[in-house]
């Protein structure tokens, strides 16, 4: 593997459980398994799409991935050489099987390379490499701070400029790069439209020259005519600044248009991962099939067979046993009710978690 198509990010078995507390002593009575063991990797320079319906855990997954929420379990390697990851896997296997000769080396490697094992200070420093752009154009900007300072927040925190002038130049550059008029540098967020606010959000995220940008529903709050403006801007910035994207969205058409590889989430787990063409053309998992068929098409003359799903997404507090999708699945078998299907490669580069393909 050469430097270019090396994975920028690899995440293993990421979990985020929120305790459910009840009673006067606030005892933990259950867990909301918002993200329940997801693994994937993103190649440098690519866009990885994460789709799912509301409540499937995709937003929590994005926030936990970059350690905005403390993960319950999991490992994340950011820009780590594959040899080191392989070595760690090997050592971990040894340690787990009881051979403790290399335990110290394993622990040391983990502390140095696994983002979730970082201390508070190291994590804070590492954060500049992975930034996030948020969904809500109104809630994501502090209304009391002028946009220039919002964009410069990261610069201020990490003290990456030498003079006030340099800071101003950098902010103006960022505003121009994201299509904002730099003369608005001292204006407050309430004076901007939804699309412009999202641009401010992008400029803020880019200030520290990150390698990865997590885009959490970046266009779902915008009007259709503005959505494409923002997506085009993101595409341009990606090639200009050599970025990698994790694109989280509920709109399959937008995800398919914008991403190279797509993962479909259902109730905290990934049920299918494939490159976008293969996902659309093969769609192995029954949930993916239903999801794709439910997307309305802006063409009154294409009549297609729609798979109507019964009922709603079950609660993540008490998910159904076995395959989480089985109560709504038309092809449900006995095994689906008892055992959870693993994510398995069905065709090269196309994985699905379903017993139908055993």
């Amino acid at each position: 593997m050469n430097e270019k198509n090396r994975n920028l990010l690899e995440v293993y078995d990421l979990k985020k459980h929120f305790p459910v507390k009840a009673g006067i002593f606030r005892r933990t009575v259950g867990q909301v398994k918002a993200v329940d063991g997801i693994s994937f990797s993103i190649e440098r320079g690519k866009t990885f799409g994460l789709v799912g319906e509301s409540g499937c855990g995709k937003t929590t997954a994005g926030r936990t991935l970059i350690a905005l929420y403390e993960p319950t379990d999991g490992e994340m390697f950011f820009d780590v050489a594959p040899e080191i990851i392989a070595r760690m896997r090997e050592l971990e296997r040894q340690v787990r099987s009881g051979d403790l000769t290399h335990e110290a080396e394993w622990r040391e490697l983990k502390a140095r390379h696994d983002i979730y094992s970082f201390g508070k200070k190291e994590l804070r420093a590492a954060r500049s490499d992975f930034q996030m752009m948020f969904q809500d154009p109104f809630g994501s900007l502090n209304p009391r701070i002028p946009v220039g300072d919002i964009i410069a927040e990261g610069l201020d925190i990490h003290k990456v400029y030498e003079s006030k002038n340099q800071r101003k130049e950098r902010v103006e550059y960022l505003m121009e790069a994201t299509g904002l008029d730099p003369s608005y540098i001292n204006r407050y967020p309430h004076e901007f439209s939804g699309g412009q606010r999202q641009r401010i959000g992008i400029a803020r995220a880019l200030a520290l020259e990150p390698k990865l940008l997590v885009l959490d529903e970046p266009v779902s709050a915008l009007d259709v005519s503005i959505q494409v403006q923002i997506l085009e801007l993101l595409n341009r910035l990606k090639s200009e600044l050599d970025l990698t994207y994790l694109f989280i969205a509920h709109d399959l058409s937008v995800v398919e248009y914008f991403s190279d590889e797509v993962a479909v989430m259902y109730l905290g787990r990934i049920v299918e991962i494939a490159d976008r063409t293969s996902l659309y053309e093969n769609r192995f998992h029954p949930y993916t099939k239903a999801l794709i068929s439910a997307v309305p098409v802006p063409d009154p003359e294409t009549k297609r067979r729609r798979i109507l799903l019964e009922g709603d997404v079950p609660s993540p507090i008490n998910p159904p046993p076995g395959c989480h999708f089985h109560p709504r699945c038309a092809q449900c078998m006995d095994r689906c009710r008892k055992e959870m299907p693993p994510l398995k490669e069905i065709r090269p580069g196309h994985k699905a978690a379903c017993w139908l393909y055993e």
Partner: protein
Amino acid sequence: MADTANKYKGKTPFQLSLMRLGRNRGAMLCLAVVVLYILMAFVSFSDWGGLQGKAHDFDLDHRFVKPFTDPSHIFGTDSFGRDVFARAVIGTRIALFLGFTTGLIMIPLAIVLGALSGYYGGWVDDIIIYVMTVIYSIPGLLIIMSLVQVMGASFLVIAFAFGVTGWVGLGRVIRGAFIQAREYEYVLAAKNLGASDGRIIFRHIVPNVTHFVIVRFVLNFVSVIKSEVTLAYVGLSIIGVPSWGNMIDLSKTEIMAGNWQNMLAPTVFMFLFLVALNIFGDALRDALDPKLKNVL
């Protein structure tokens, strides 16, 4: 690009709030009354028009002058011949002093404890909530009375007592605001940029609670002044200093004989001040409420 009308361009949200407030005539009138009271408190240090003499010197020839009969004693005099108007003017000083000092004690307590408990949660939250509940469940007057008994009656002690009992309400509000704000996307964004807890708390969250703090500070005067009167009435105030509470306390023996001068002056002073503060406080709340930010 930005399509707000010209006169709102480049204004901070706080300036916009003040503009909203400025348009409210009633609130401005009440603010004028409040400012008048503040001036009066300063004037009461001087001897303008023989104020000190009128208020403190006994004048046994002019005892119990009825209100509105003698132009040199508009509101009349008390059992020692002291002018009740002059005494009420000096009482303004005590009222403002108490309100202000209490605010200074209460607000930092409420911000720090509310912020700690709301932002960090967990055991920190449990302890602070416990303390709040304890203070809340004992009648405030009981705590104040015991503090005054133990530490002696001085206005500083009374202010301290009001302060340590008064922060709980505001503290709860701030805690709630912090719990909400923890999940704000711009707070997450700051965290993601690597901001320290201190920066997140003071730069991004505290400005969201300032409107609670300012309004509470204003309305705090109302509750403190009322409590002072209650306290004086049960005999827990400093005798000899003309506070509104003291004057009303004195009037309770005189009123039987038909002398209501000592009742009249502080009641009128207090009534005007409290009405003005209440109306202004409500208007301030409306103007500063961040939920109304885009309503111009």
